[in-house]
Structures are given as structure tokens and as C-alpha cells.
């Protein structure tokens, strides 16, 4: 069946199976920035924003997201027009293999929208659903902290 989705602020009409997960529909249609690490809702690599909330896209049926706003990591910033969080992730060494980065960046993005000045503990808790095996999280937490600081100092929009 064909269903209309709002992905990264664009309407996309996609052919889907009624039982398909949002993760599979996104990946099958070129949104490969959404990663699959476990398909069990445990690693956060497939996190997307649905109506601004972080969701493991492997755990929701695509159908259920049809009328909602879906954002992948490319929806907040791209290679040629990166979001501040993405720039700071890259310059802080918060990215090693990068497989967790799209989900991690979205969790951080969602946190900073709700809480512009999080403590380290709040950052760690907000990223609790995102596994990373490379960095030990030290530089990821640092990147989120730095981003928050720069946004607050320069009154940069969190969008």
C-alpha cells in the first residue's frame, strides 16, 4: 500500500507493507542514515524524531507514523549545512565509527530543546538509550555540554 509520510519536512509517498517497521521503511527508501544495530529497541542506532520525540524506529510500525513529523539526523543538519551539535560532535572526537552518531545526535538534539542547560548527569541520562562501544561516552557527553554552552552564550537557536 502507498502511504504519505512527512520525512525531514518533505512529503514522501512510500510503498509499504502494513507490518513493516518504520526503520525498514526508512532504510528501504534511501534514508540509510538511520542505522540498525539490534532491531530490538536496545541500542538507539535507529532513533528518529517523531513529532520531536526520540523513538527507536525499529519498535514502531511505519503506519503509526504516517500522519506525524519524522526527522532523521539529516533533518537537523547535513554535510553542507550541519547543525552546531554535529559540528561539535565532529570537532570533539565524539564520533569514532559513527554508527551510533545519528541516533546519539538526535537524542542530544531532543535534550537541548527541552533543557538548554543540562548538567552532565542529565546529559548522560538523556543518552541512556544510545549505546556506543567506541568512545566510552566521555567525548560525547563533552560535545553535548560544549554545544549547550555555545548555544547559550551566543543565543543560537536550538532548531
Amino acid at each position, binding site marked *: 500500500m502507498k502511504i504519505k509520510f512527512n520525512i525531514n519536512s518533505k512529503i514522501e509517498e512510500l510503498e509499504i507493507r502494513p507490518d513493516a517497521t518504520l526503520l525498514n521503511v526508512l532504510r528501504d527508501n534511501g534514508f540509510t542514515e538511520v542505522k540498525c544495530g539490534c532491531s*530490538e529497541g536496545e541500542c538507539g542506532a535507529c532513533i528518529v524524531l517523531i513529532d520531536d520525540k526520540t523513538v527507536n524506529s525499529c519498535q514502531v510500525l511505519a503506519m503509526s507514523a504516517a500522519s506525524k513529523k519524522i526527522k532523521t*539526523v539529516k533533518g537537523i543538519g547535513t554535510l553542507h549545512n550541519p547543525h552546531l551539535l554535529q559540528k561539535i560532535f565532529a570537532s570533539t572526537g565524539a564520533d569514532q565509527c559513527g*554508527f551510533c552518531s545519528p541516533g546519539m545526535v538526535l537524542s542530544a538534539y531532543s535534550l537541548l530543546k527541552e533543557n538548554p542547560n543540562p548538567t552532565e548527569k542529565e546529559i548522560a541520562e538523556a*543518552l541512556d538509550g544510545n549505546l556506543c562501544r567506541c568512545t566510552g561516552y*566521555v*567525548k560525547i557527553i563533552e560535545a553535548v555540554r560544549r554545544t549547550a554552552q555555545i548555544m547559550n552564550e551566543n543565543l543560537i537557536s536550538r532548531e
Partner: protein
Amino acid sequence: MFKYVKKAVEKIDGLALVTGNEKYTDDFSFDKMLYVSVLHSGYAHAQIEELDDSAARKIPGVVEILSYNNVNTILYTTAGQGFPEPSPYDTILFGKTMRFVGDNVCAVAAETKEIADIALKKIKIKYKRLKPLLNFEQSDNSKIIIHKNDGAFPKIPVYYDASKNIAAMVEAEAGDFEKAFGESKNKIEKNFYVSYASHCALEPHAAVSYIDNRGRLVIISTTQVPFHVRRIVSHVAEIPISKIRVIKPRIGGGFGGKQEVLLEPIAALVTWRTKRPAKLVYSRKEVFNSTRTRHQYKTVFKVGFQDNGIITALHLDALENSGAYGSHALTVLSNAGSKTLPLLNKIENLKFTGKGVYTNLPCGGAYRGYGATEAYFGYGQIIDMVCEATNNNIVEYYKKWSIKSGETSPIFKALGEGKEGVAMTITSSSLEECLETGSKEFHWNEKKKLYDSNFNKGKRIKRGVGMAALMQGSAIPEIDMASAYIKMNDDGSFNLNIGATDLGTGSDTILAQIAAEVLDVPVEKFIVTSSDTDFTPFDTGAYASSTTYLTGQAVKKCAENIKEQILKVGAEILGVIQNEVEIENEQVITKPGFADFRKISFAEICNYSFYQNNQFQIQATASHVSPKSPPPFAAHFVEIEVDTFTGIIKVINYVAAVDCGTPINPILAEGQAEGAIVNGISYALVENYYFSEYGKLLNDTFGKYGVYTASDIPPIKVILIDSYEETGPFGAKSISEININGPLPAIANAFFNATGKRLFKSPFTPEDVLKVLKG
């Protein structure tokens, strides 16, 4: 001193990674692609008597089924090592004997993944169940023989006895241990156990293959070892090497788990037979059950020492559970001795004995630390025990007795990679400064004194501090080879092509920094292409802490050659002789003192060499084999709290001072250390494989297994303390593995400091901790 080296240059793929722009293996799809699913054994030990795939073949959409019925029986090792591999040839892609839960039965290729999965269920298999061997301590006395009459053999001339379930055996001795131990007044003898572990790279193993326009096979793979993949696929799938191209795109972490050729031959066979693209991606459960693990170990340490703490005799006897196959069995075992015993090199009588045995459990393989992690658990505690027994300050003890620059250890020569090692004198070490600076930063003396007093008396939550000194290696000496190719472009940019495999470590960036330093050109002027067997020169791959040290030196040599060519052309254009010019800021300039200052830009030099006079392409290639494996060193300090009611150990502070030579990129070096430390802490406290009585892994999900998250980590401080390794590029050694070795012994020593009890078995789960506290 340096311009582009020792700088926190942003990873060249950084922005592309964090914007989701980079492609990983599973992100590649092709028209008419088949989806492959593998059926794995549900039994730990069984013989397949009949495999009937006729019903499955009738399902619409099923295109190919691979099993022993139609795939030749070829022995090989899945270990992605140099050739001839030191691991035994004991594996068959699709055999009739199932040796662990997760072993390959057969594979289905179909139009969709769903059809492939349905077809797997329609394959009728008649198993004859055999009694499994699940206790590795009973393996070599067992009547159950794992590799019986299957022709398994060692590829290199080493001791191997499948009839006794022995996959590997190693012995080395310096001095006379038995005599010295017998004469020792003070003796300690203890057994230590470490558990299985999964690498848990976030990206599961995957392979995608297709036939290119000229009929060649292309394999895109999540591999750490593209050139070994090409060679092993050629052997197993019986396709000439010249017909195979292997590409590693971005890879979602490896840690050794992807130094293993598991999926590629299956995808390759499907594509080669059907001439259609094929994709095989493992589920997380398949990664846990069927791929490779850290080996389970029992180590027995015997030490004899004098009243003043001087150790006169030390014997490490290691028993390694290799699991169903002997992948990396021998070399991980050797490393358990060769990466620990040289640390306290003044011990006159040293002995190492080790045995790797087969069981019907998941297979060990390469895992960051590679035997050293397993052995340091006991080694670091034994040294602590000697220090505690003889009232020695352990930090001062390590300062005094550790190997130093200008010194050697007989173990370097005695223990190699399945053969004799390479004699080596240490030419760089800042371990003493690491111990000094680390202990100061940590306030070791103050804290140790406090917790040694009656601070913990009567308290429910007890605090303690522990530390350990560590070493590893940098590359495999006189075996592993790396190479690099550089060519110049007409805007003064360069192509840097390397076979080396960036696993997310940032080696593409680090190697560009090394070339940039030689040529005095910004890093962004290098277009880096890596890990493609058609377009990049040979490299053994990303393992053995080698890329920065080994490939880095190949890149340095290559860039130096390019520099000579640029100087020659530059001098020709400027009308001076070559020794009157030098390189500066992308230009060739006349040296200071030369009467009339002249300069010419790199871009102009390349244009000249392309289009004007004495035309040629400025290009070079260079290879490097290391004559030695200089160890990085580290001193780790940890503070913990032990809840004596619940048995929960909480790490509250961690400091690691690390000598990796010159850190080519300090941020990336710190990242290596931080990642390894967190993995080491969770390995010490949580990670394990729990099996059913039939040998089935029970905790095969991230949730049940327990990978640490951001909210589990303590404050961690990494301090890099440079030394200068003359055989490494700009003084660099390795850093990727060493730091995973610290948490096990350091935390166990801290536990002793807090409670007066020793932990001999990891992980330190609350249940086990309570037992230790009671017992």
C-alpha cells in the same frame, strides 16, 4: 616542533559520519539483489545425517540454497591473519558436524529476506545429537573429541593435537623457574578466571556482493582485513584472487570481531553462482551466537619472592577455551605471556605455559587486548599481593622493577606469533612518568593511606583504590606489512591510498596527518582512499595495534620519496641545485642564506611536471615491515565503592596515564583510551556469556548482556605522556588495545583495598561479590 602531527585534527570523515552521510556495508543495495539468511545449529554438538532442502527450494522466490550438498568441503581458518595463518585449518563453511550452538548449517538466498527466513524453516534436517563438551577445564581429558577425523591441521609447523582437543600449545622459559620457585622462602599460587565477552560493535557483521561489468566479484564487507578476506574467499569459494575485489566502506566498530572471515564466503558463493547481487546481514543474536568472542581463560600464577618483595620466580600457566574452532587460539595464547611477562623484566626465572582447548561452545577470536587482557587480571593482582605481603608501595615497585628504555626481556625472543619472537630492546618508555603523574593526579598515596587505615571499619559502603601497570605491543614484528601510495595533483593536492582499515579509530586522518607533516601541506589537501583491494596497496589490516605505527611508517617513507621528487622538480624550475631548496607551506623555496630568494608553489610544480618539461607523474609507493613491536605503556588507577549489603561494586574515579609515544592525534588517542577503559570496566563488572546446560547462550541481546551506557560511566581522566619511539612515525607507538587491560586488575586490587578479600573470577557480579565477602 610539529605542524600537523600531535594536533587534534578533526577526523576527515567526521562531519559525514555525524550527518549520516557516510555509507556502511548494509547501506549498499543493488537491483535484483538477493537476500541471504543462514541457518545455524541449535545443538552444541550434533551430526547432520540428512539435509533435505527440496521443500524449501519449491518456495517461490527461493533462488539458491548452499549446504554440504553442493559446497565443496574445504578446510580453512576464519581468522583473518597473515598467510600462512598461525590458526589451525579446522573449519568448513558448511560441514556435517555441528560443533556449537550457532555453527553454520546452510544458507538460503531469496528474493526477499522474509522468503529466505521462511525457507530456512522448511529445510528438513535429521540430526544425530552428540554429547557436548562444555567444560573447558575437562577438555583435554574428555572422551568427547571435537575435531574427530575431519582432517583439521595446523597450517604452520606448531604443536597441534585434535585427538586431545588441543588447538594450541605454547611454552617458553627464561632461567630455571622450578629451581628458583623451590628455593623461594615466600610463595603465592593462585588461579584466576575470566569470562567470555562479545565485542558488541554497534554495526552487526554484513557482506554485500555483486558481479561487476567485466564479470568480477565485488564484496563490500564489514571487515578489518580486506586483503585477508580476498585471499580466504578465494580459497573457500574457489574463485581466483584476480577475480575478487574487496571493499571496506565505513565500518561500525570492530575491536577484533571483524578480523574474522565469516559472512563473505557465503555472499560470494551466492553471487558467483547466481550472478546476482547478494546481501547478508547478521542479526544481533547471530552476532552474539555465531561470530567470535573473547576467549574464556583460566590462568594459574605461581610466584616466589624475597622478604623485600623481589620476585625471583614467576610462572604463568594459561588455559584457553578456544571454543569449537581454533581461530586465533595460538596467537591469543602467546600474547597472554608475551604482553605481560616482559613488564617486570628483572624477574630472573620466568616461565610461560599455555594450552588452548576445543569445546562445544562459541569460538574465541581476536578481541582488543588479545590475551593480554585475560592474563593481566591475574598478573596485576599477583604483583599487588606481593607488594601487600612485603609492605611495598606498588607504584614505587613498578617504577623500580618495570622494563625501561635500553632494557630487554628474554620473553620477546622466546614468544612470538606461533613461532619464536623477535629480540627487542626498549627504545621508548615514559612508564615511570606515567606512574608518577598518574598517581599524583589520582592522589594515590593519600587515598591509599586513608583506605589502608580503619576508614572502612564498620561501614556498609567500603572504599578502596587499586592500580595496575600495563604494556602491549605495536604491530607484529617481521611478519605484518603495510604499504602506501601517494600521487600529486595539479592543484597541489595529493591522493593518499592505503590498504589500511579505518574502523572508526580515525586512521585515515592520522595517516594523512603523517603525510602532511612530511610534505608541509594541510591535512585537507589529502584525498584519502583506503581499504579497497583493487585501488589501494596491500596492508595486513587493522589488528595487533598496528595501523598508526606500521602503516604510518609506510606513509612517512612514501611521503619522503614524494618530497624528494617535488624538491627535484622545484629546483629545476627555480634553476638551482636540489640541495639549495627546501619545502615550506606548499612551496619549494631557496634555503636561508641563498643570495636571491626564489619560490615556487606545489601547484605550479605539479603543472610543470604534467605539461611542461621532463614530464612525469609525481608519485611513490612505500612498504614497511617493523623490526620490532615497541610496547606502549600505561598506569591505571581506580577508586571504587563496595556495597557490602548488595555486593554492588561502583567505580567512582578512574585515571589512566598512557605512553603511546607521540600521539599523532591526541583527541583520537584519548578516545581510544576512554573507549577501551569503559569496555574494560564493563567486562570486569558485568559482561559474560551465560550458557544453558546444553551450551546455548542465554543472554544474547544487548539488554541481557549489559553493554554500558552513558549513565554507567565514572569520571575518567586520560593523561597522555609522550615518549619518542624512533622506529615509529614521528615517534608514535600504539594505543588502541593496551587500555582495556587495566580495569580487571585495578578494580580487583581496589576491592582488596576496600574489603581485604580477593576476587579471582570475573565478572565481579553482585552475587559473586557477596559470596566472596561471606567466604
